[in-house]
């Protein structure tokens, strides 16, 4: 469904990704883990065209999307939950959701769906999003992305700054979203949890894929356990 071929990207003169190859199959949940600064966020930003690759191609559903604009990519069914959530703090929860579904014709049924996923958002619908707790903001960010009806959902550190219990709830929801047919590419620091809910994973190290394989394999790999799972 998504394939990155020889992606080179960076900021200004500083190269971050150096010939990265990555693939996500339809219906899969794929985890992308790695140390701080490895370039995980940069991968997601390249996919959703927030930055342009210097070389390489991004194929989505077999078509090259690396020349498209961000909004065109959203229209094709790719939605990005940015790192630190990027919610619109001065808009209400409801308005955030409306912007999320900007490319779609939303009906009340769409809102019902995300409210069922996260009931707390229904209670807070009229509250300005900046007043939500960190966990609620993450729920909002995920719901907002879902309203563009993505085929592929890119999640950048959904557990950032959340209490263990909330993290658990978020990961359960990600599993639920995936079981309803959405493909997920999940960037996480919390490698344990990410490997648990994903089928395959990539380990990124300074802009290159260090390991790739099924999540079970990686969980069993001694080197990875030491370097990324802190054992």
């Amino acid at each position, binding site marked *: 469904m998504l394939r990155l071929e020889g992606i080179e990207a960076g900021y200004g003169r500083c190269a971050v990704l150096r010939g990265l190859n990555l693939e996500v199959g339809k219906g899969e949940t794929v985890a992308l883990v790695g140390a701080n600064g490895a370039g995980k966020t940069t991968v997601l930003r390249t996919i959703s065209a927030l930055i342009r690759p210097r070389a390489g191609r991004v194929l989505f559903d077999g078509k090259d999307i690396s020349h498209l604009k*961000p909004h065109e990519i959203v229209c094709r069914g790719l939605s990005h939950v940015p790192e630190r959530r990027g919610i*619109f703090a001065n808009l209400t929860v409801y308005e955030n959701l409306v*912007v999320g579904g900007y490319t779609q014709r939303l009906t009340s049924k769409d809102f019902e769906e995300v409210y069922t996923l996260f009931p707390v958002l229904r209670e807070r619908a009229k509250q300005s999003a900046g007043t939500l707790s960190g966990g609620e903001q993450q729920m909002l960010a995920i719901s907002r*992305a879902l309203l563009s009806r993505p085929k592929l959902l890119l999640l950048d550190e959904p557990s950032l700054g959340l209490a263990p219990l909330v993290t658990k709830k978020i990961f359960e929801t990600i599993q639920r979203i995936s079981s309803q047919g959405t493909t997920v590419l999940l960037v996480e620091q919390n490698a344990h949890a990410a490997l648990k809910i994903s089928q395959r994973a990539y380990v990124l190290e300074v802009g290159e894929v260090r390991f790739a394989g099924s999540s079970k394999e990686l969980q069993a790999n001694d080197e990875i356990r030491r370097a990324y799972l802190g054992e």
Partner: protein
Amino acid sequence: MSAPSQNAGFLKQATITAVFIAVLWGVDQLLQIGLNPYYVRVVVNCGIAAILALSLNLINGCAGQFSLGHAGFMAVGAYVSATLTTVYPAGEFFQSPLGVGVAITIGGIVAALAGYLVGLPSLRLKGDYLAIVTLGFSEMIRVCFLNIPAVGGARGMNGIPVHSSFFWVYLWAALAWVFFWRLLRSGRGRAILALRDDETAAEAMGVEVSHFKVVSFSLSSAFAGIAGGLFAHYQGFIDPQSFDFSRSVLVVIMVVLGGMGSLSGAVLGAVVVTVLPESLRVFESYRLIIFPLVLILMMLLRPKGILGHREIWEFFPRRAK
């Protein structure tokens, strides 16, 4: 929604509009007989200021850009419409009240085009940098008019037919209100508001950031141009000095004072900034000190503007049923 209820809704709206226009007209007549012309002038100036503030609010308050050039767009509207009605009056038509209305509308359209041009650099610039570009642009416009003899140069234009009145100014102000109100409650409006909070996230949600920046500049300039046209045809006289930097600053003050992003705040700011200097006339030249002092005090007391991001009625919660 079913067809009959849609019809009923339309009828209701048409009735409200008709009643509103009738009331405006009635008040206009009363003002002409009853009220001291000086007060009428202040009231009309409030209306013009309200249109300016409502329109600037879209860029500065809602889209999160910073324009310091609103007087420039106002000047475009004023000069274009006044040229049509005074310098090259295309027959009798542009002298009539209807013709003046058409001329003012054309002025608004030309101002929108100017806004489109200024909107383009805003794609790359933000904050202070954008403010400087828009300021430079509005000064450029002013200097242009200063050097075109056909529009009077530094002497300005005299003898502009006086056809805008309380009625027309407040009709346009109401139109501006309804327009921006509906815009901000539509999907597009929310997309514009999203720009202010997080441009990157808005982009990731599929909002065409550049498109919306340029569109908000054009829409906002259109209404600034209309305010300019109304101003010209109310005063009967314009000169480049009427559209200098200090007027742009005053409009920014109205928006900031009222509360960024709040429509009722913009109107409130416009009224305060227009009426306050007038009511301070008893202090004679001291008012030039008192006016800024009052503004500073207000901002200290309510740093987010009088209303903040909210609308005025949100301060009076409806009693729970």
